């Protein structure tokens, strides 16, 4: 009897995850690249960001709810920002960890800063960046449960209802698909990871 609503909530849940992770990815990648260009500022900005990162998601959604009300945008903004953190951090670390000799060789070959970024630094940092994307996606699947807290559906709906009417099977109806979703998306990103990692640096990655 829950069949239809299960499917619907999986759909909503997935939609929240995909939209927020996409925004988070764009945001995190951009900020990560910008910060890697200015290591001086990033020494100040990165610690501040990681403090924000520790604010519980539930608090953040609550605050946004007060301002924006019960609209999907509230959830998406909150989740995007949380999804951004691991991607931003990994982008920054990935780029700044690219060995200096490659950057020097690229500069010596006559690449402009933009060319060095797109042809050398980003490809070499890609495995690390996708690692951040994976983390962000899996976290976001679980954080999306919070959407139901402000009545916006998703798999959290079953969990909250289950808790309210004290029915474990109801809780599991939300929890199990959420877990499966996290695993599936993780596998999907692993496949992506293989695709974007240049063959030349694959072995290196494994041994790390």
């Amino acid at each position, binding site marked *: 009897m829950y069949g239809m609503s299960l499917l619907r909530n999986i759909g909503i849940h997935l939609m929240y995850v995909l939209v927020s992770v996409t925004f988070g990815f764009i945001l995190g990648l951009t900020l990560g690249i910008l910060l890697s260009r200015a290591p001086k500022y990033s020494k100040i900005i990165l610690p501040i960001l990681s403090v924000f990162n520790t604010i519980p998601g539930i608090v953040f959604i609550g605050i946004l709810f007060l301002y924006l009300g019960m609209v999907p945008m509230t959830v998406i903004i909150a989740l995007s920002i949380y999804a951004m953190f691991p991607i931003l951090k990994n982008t920054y670390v990935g780029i700044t960890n690219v060995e200096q*000799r*490659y950057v020097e060789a690229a500069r010596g070959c*006559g690449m402009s800063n933009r060319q060095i970024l797109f042809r*050398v630094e980003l490809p070499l940092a890609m495995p690390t960046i996708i690692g951040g994307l994976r983390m962000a996606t899996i976290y976001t699947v679980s954080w999306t449960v919070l959407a139901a807290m402000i009545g916006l559906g998703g798999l959290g709906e079953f969990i909250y209802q289950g808790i309210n009417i004290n029915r474990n099977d109801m809780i599991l109806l939300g929890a199990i698909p959420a877990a499966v979703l996290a695993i599936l998306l993780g596998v999907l990103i692993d496949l992506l990871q293989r695709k974007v990692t*240049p063959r*030349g640096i694959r072995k290196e990655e494994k041994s790390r």
Partner: protein
Amino acid sequence: MIQFENVTKRYGDATVLDKISFNIEPGQFAVLIGPSGCGKTTTLKTINRLIEPDGGRVLIDGDDTAVINRVQLRRRIGYVIQQIGLFPNMTVAQNITVVPKLLKYDKERCDKIVHEMLEMVDMPYEQYAHKYPTEMSGGQQQRIGVLRALAASPPIVLMDEPFGALDPMTRSSLQDEILRLQKKLHKTIVFVTHDMEEALSLADVIIFMEDGHITQMAPPEEMLKNPANETVKNFLGKHIAAADPSALTAADFMKTNVVTVDSKKGLRASTALMMRSNVDSLIVTDENDRYIGTLSVEDIKSCGSPDCKVIDLLKTDRETFRTTDDAKRCFDMLLSTKANYVIVLNPDDTLAGIITKTSIAKALAERLWG
């Protein structure tokens, strides 16, 4: 032509380059050498503006590099770094065509370049073009590193200790290779090294640097003949001697720990001395250490009487040389007669040492291989 005009570079209070001026002619193989921290790498990097000088000018074919767009400038100058720095995310072919692609050569032209380049170093296209750097040895990687620098046919190639990280065998085969390429392509090459042997075998002209100054700029032969100061001399070290065999004297090769006996000693004492020192002949000297003759175990045997003195038995037919004599004459004598050693005397006739066949071999080995 590369011209340095009073080029100066400071980092804080430290002056790394102090008004250096020199010219490198087109087609020349110039090697920058000197103790670490002398400014040789800095000098190299001011040419493609990886380092900007604080004063003075660097001109290439008469054009001040400071007014040329940096990125454009670097595309016209090949660059090889010590740590190889092939891009690990690119195949050999992609690495070679980095600069051609930056210069927007079309795909066919790039393909042709890859074929030509690989052929030049005898690395078959089918086998190597699509390999990644990590799938090759260090020597092969640096060959590709050199090809990457040559791919867009720049007239000038800069090399910053390119073979420093390679094992000696690979290193010398790459040195041969680069000389061959240089002969064929007539590039102007500026090459940084701290290895004098490498400098001597590659350079048309060696630029010796010290504390941001140029101590000496000369062809290898000239530098060997007239090193400008002690530092240059020390750097040249063993190569100075090896380079000019005519300057070697007997003193360079002689053995000085020789067993001598006073002419007034008896035979018993002499035999005992031979046994103790494990030799079969002694050099006989007078009370003032002047050489008189030699005494061998055969000479002692030939005398029946135990009362004989050394002075009665010694032989004086041994060849003698002066310490300042040409070493070659001693060698010729040793090799052409049955004698197993010759005597070397100081100007005042006192004994300086002896030269044996073994000491020749040893000394030669030292001169040649250090």
